[in-house]
């Protein structure tokens, strides 16, 4: 996707459709979509200086839903990803909090050739609806 805020909604629609096809529960789908949105929004806000793209690879299996994001923005670290406690006086930084609260794993990975950052998101599919 383009690293632009306007690209977030089409991205969500595309991934929603993919997750529906994979049989994801409504709860899993909403959790994963919000977390993925936050990861992409962080890259757009902090990493790209208004240019570039974000490569997103989604993998769905019976047990988990994963996304690997790669971008060419400013380098991020574990420290960058660390959530801080919510503070009504300082509402910024909620994106990291959401990602960590919604997912089972948020980790940096080798970005591969041509990219600066690699981020992997994982949700274990343990919340299936009956």
């Amino acid at each position: 996707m383009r690293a632009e805020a306007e690209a977030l909604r089409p991205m969500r629609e595309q991934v929603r459709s993919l997750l529906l096809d994979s049989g994801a529960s409504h709860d899993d789908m909403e959790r994963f979509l919000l977390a993925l949105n936050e990861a992409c929004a962080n890259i757009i806000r902090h990493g790209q200086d208004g240019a570039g793209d974000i490569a997103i690879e989604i993998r769905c299996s019976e047990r988990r839903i994963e996304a690997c994001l790669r971008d060419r923005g400013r380098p991020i670290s574990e420290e960058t990803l660390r959530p801080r406690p919510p503070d009504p006086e300082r509402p910024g930084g909620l994106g990291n909090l959401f990602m960590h609260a919604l997912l089972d794993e948020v980790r940096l990975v080798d970005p591969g050739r041509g990219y600066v950052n690699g981020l992997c998101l994982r949700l274990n599919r343990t919340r299936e609806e009956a």
Partner: protein
Amino acid sequence: MSFEIRIHTGADHLRMALSGEIDLAVSPRVREALLACLGNGQAVEVDLSEVSYIDSSGVATLVEGLQLARQQGVEFTLSGVGGTVMKVLKLARLDEVFTIRQSPRAVGQGAA
């Protein structure tokens, strides 16, 4: 559904009705409209009953509105908070920070 902001002007408060999905692309529009409403000096109610999605940028915008309203000494409420939006407010542990009305106040109806 495309995103829309509708402002309803009452005798004693303004109701800002939002519809659609609130994300990083539309939060600046929400912020601009909120600041304009709060600049009026009247109580402001943000009606979220037609909001189907909100992310952290939308939540942060609402918090900014709340902070500004407090500084100005005007009432700031949310209404029509559906399940999806409430889950996100709870995730941010902000559900108890806002004054939340179950349903939107009719424009022209006095403050509760």
